[in-house]
């Protein structure tokens, strides 16, 4: 370690004395030794203190509000380091160097001073340090000379290290696609460009020649040999996939889903599916839609489905019940609080319409409108989301025909409605006609509900919807 450091020190002679060089003997403290030992596997870099530059308006101190990096992070020139605030001005401080952050001199909410060190950055020794003033911003023109390379009137952004790499490999920066911020060309872009040319990742070497395939050759006999040597052999390009796995913790809505579904798993589900001919209902809704709109309400199919379900539950109350934890008691719920699964930006929520048994179809439509607008605004209250006794999920609005819905505890049944499709069906006379068909998939708790009960309920619900006039007979 000792010898390595001495070598690096001697090669860096142009460093101004202003910069703190860790390699003087007085800095041979235990902590520094440890730090250097860790990095000795890579080239031993020089630690530079990056000082807080002038903010303007005579400001001498600022408050550090947010760090964008932490100790140990790699930074490139122009990367954001931190956000500081002074008197209503928020300032983004960017790095002047490529390197690794070794020390943050301030914590959040500390006061930082202009001209004093902000962070310590370890710079790769072989790259050297650009001799820049570290307090006042350099005039824009010379700044651009350092960082831009004008080629054919295009300004290409690249750090000095990247430009050197391109030069060593005879690469024109204008031919490289930059993937960094502001289309900046990064070291990876140069390496990818090289790889594409020769089919391999090459170390930077002045000997590698990138020659366009249409180059003229000088002597004819040498031509085939020349071509064979100079035209790059098309090897299958290594497809560079830089995607990384992303791990996030399960919180909020997802956590809620995890809880519900884990509990639902304990319920032995059985399924029952059927198809409903909604031709008459479609017609009825077309007639009633303008009436509802006059009253300021959007009328979908759901209010009909919900009311029909409630009428069915009157005949088969076990479907509107709840089984206690020990499966000792069944509670038949008096209210039909029918839940409607809603898909929001954050996830699945199931608000319910209370007391459907005493609501008209129009009442249900009004309530659905209210729940839908609150749901999309993310403003549903606890009472809207609790107390449900039976649920319908209109997955058909998104798509699908048959589904296998999961019962939401403490309920014992749920129905999933597929999309309405126009399909050919036979009528009583044996003629083919256009029918509006929707599929329904029920799931029920097999501990207290048997197949026959579910089937009969479904048939009753189906009959109300296939012949809406029959609902009139049983409306309370």
């Amino acid at each position: 370690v000792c010898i390595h450091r001495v070598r690096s020190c001697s090669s860096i002679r142009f460093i101004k004395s202003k910069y703190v060089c860790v390699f003087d003997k007085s800095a041979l403290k235990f902590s520094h030794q440890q730090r250097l030992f860790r990095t000795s596997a890579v080239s031993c870099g020089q630690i530079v203190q990056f000082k807080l530059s002038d903010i303007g308006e005579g400001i001498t101190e600022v408050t550090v509000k947010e760090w964008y990096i932490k100790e140990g992070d790699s930074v490139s020139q122009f990367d954001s380091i931190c956000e500081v605030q002074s008197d209503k001005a928020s300032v983004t401080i960017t790095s002047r160097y490529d390197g690794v952050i070794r020390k943050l001199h301030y914590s959040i909410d500390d006061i930082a001073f202009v001209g004093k060190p902000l962070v310590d950055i370890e710079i790769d020794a072989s790259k050297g340090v650009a001799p820049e003033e570290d307090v006042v911003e350099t005039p824009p023109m010379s700044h651009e000379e350092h960082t831009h390379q004008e080629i054919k009137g295009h300004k290409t952004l690249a750090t000095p290290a990247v430009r050197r790499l391109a030069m060593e490999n005879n690469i024109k920066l204008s031919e490289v696609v930059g993937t960094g911020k502001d289309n900046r060309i990064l070291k990876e872009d140069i390496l990818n460009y090289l790889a594409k040319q020769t089919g391999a990742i090459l170390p930077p070497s002045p000997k590698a020649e990138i020659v366009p395939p249409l180059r003229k050759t000088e002597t004819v006999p040498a031509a085939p040999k020349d071509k064979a040597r100079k035209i790059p052999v098309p090897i299958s390009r290594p497809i560079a996939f830089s995607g990384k796995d992303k791990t996030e913790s399960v919180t909020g809505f997802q956590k809620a889903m995890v809880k519900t579904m884990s509990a639902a798993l304990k319920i032995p589900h059985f399924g029952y599916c059927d198809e409903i001919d909604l031709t008459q209902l479609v017609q009825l809704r077309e007639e009633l839609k303008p009436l509802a709109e006059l009253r300021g309400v959007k009328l979908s199919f759901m209010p009909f489905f919900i009311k029909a379900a409630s009428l069915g539950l009157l005949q088969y109350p076990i479907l509107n019940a709840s089984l206690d934890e020990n499966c000792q008691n069944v509670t038949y719920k008096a209210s039909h609080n029918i839940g409607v699964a809603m898909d929001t930006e954050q996830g699945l929520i199931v608000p319910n319409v209370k007391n459907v048994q005493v609501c008209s179809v129009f009442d249900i439509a009004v309530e659905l409108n209210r729940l839908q607008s609150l749901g999309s605004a993310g403003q549903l209250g606890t009472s809207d989301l609790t107390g449900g006794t039976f649920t319908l999920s209109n997955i058909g609005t998104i798509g699908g025909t048959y589904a296998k819905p999961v019962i939401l505890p403490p309920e014992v049944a749920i129905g999933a409605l597929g999309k309405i499709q126009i399909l050919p069906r036979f009528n009583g006379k044996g003629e083919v006609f256009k029918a509006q068909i929707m599929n329904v998939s029920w799931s029920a708790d097999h501990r207290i509900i048997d197949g026959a009960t579910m089937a009969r309920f479904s048939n009753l619900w189906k009959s109300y919807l296939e012949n809406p006039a029959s609902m009139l007979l049983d409306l309370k």
Partner: protein
Amino acid sequence: MVLQSLKSCLWLSCILRTPKACFWSTASGGLIIQSVSNDIYENLAVEDWIHDHMDLEKQQVLFLWRNSPSVVIGRHQNPWQECNLRLLRQKNIKLARRRSGGGTVYHDLGNINLTFFTTRKKYERTENLKLVVKALKALRPQLDVHVTDRYDILLDRQYKISGTAAKLGRTSAYHHCTLLCNADKLVLSSVLKSPYKGLKSNATPSVPASVKNLFEEDPSLTSEMLLDAIAKEYATQHQIDHHVNLINPADEALLPGISNKTKELQTWEWVYGKTPKFSVSTCLNMAYNGSVLDVKVNMDVKHGKIEVCNIDLPEQWLPPGLYSELVKSLTGSKFCPNEITTLVTTLLRVCPQDDELHSRWSLLCENMIMLM
């Protein structure tokens, strides 16, 4: 209209030629643009775009914009501390966090916003505000307006009619300020009053001030007149022609990448998640069964999420298993009423079906949600 679209074409071709946009203009020195949108997020995105992509060396920019009712908090502020979030939600008033520092403001169409874009070196707030005062005095010489050392503009030495904030980057900077022409003062004062108690944080606090509309001083003034006067003064000072270029912040072709900027400004992670760490230490007074329960609550919120949560309930008021489930669910969740409502109502599904228990649970949860 034709002239406008021709300009847009030239504009566009200019951008396509060089990576850093160079807006076309008859004379260099300055450019005046005005947004056709009243959406706070779209307009803030335009500021970001100009800050990131425009070369301000040869040409400074004045951006004029107005917004539909919105509350805008500074980069390092705490929205719970600054405004009445419940009222905002009820009234459908948008909440935005800008990238510049400073305090919280209320915008509506009776308020105009001015942004002065310059290079970092030419950043000079006092000069900009003096320009505004000069424009106002040229329009109405009898107006008593002046710039304070806090970069406010006061009317009659008393009432604040303009507040300032700024953002500095590596090579460019912007200074923006508001100007109250005919804003709804009732809504302004009600939304900028926070009902949340027990908040402790190092977020930048706003300094409340008495405000007044210029319209109250002189009913003949309109927002359009003010915008025009300021544009005229800017044009004079920058020796450019007095032409205001209209831009549409939704035009991705003109401003490539702007829709991503707009989207980012609307994310929960930016608006709420960027709130500096804070703690909530308060007492819930819950009326239950004829008596009032005092329940101490302590929460630490970081990045807008509940890091630590303590609720001091009377023993056995809730079954211990359920209490720990509640605390476990709250920890790591967003400090957001919508998220917490969903969580607690879901938890109720897997509780024993007991009416008494349910009503206690609902009471506690509703009180907790009121804190957000």
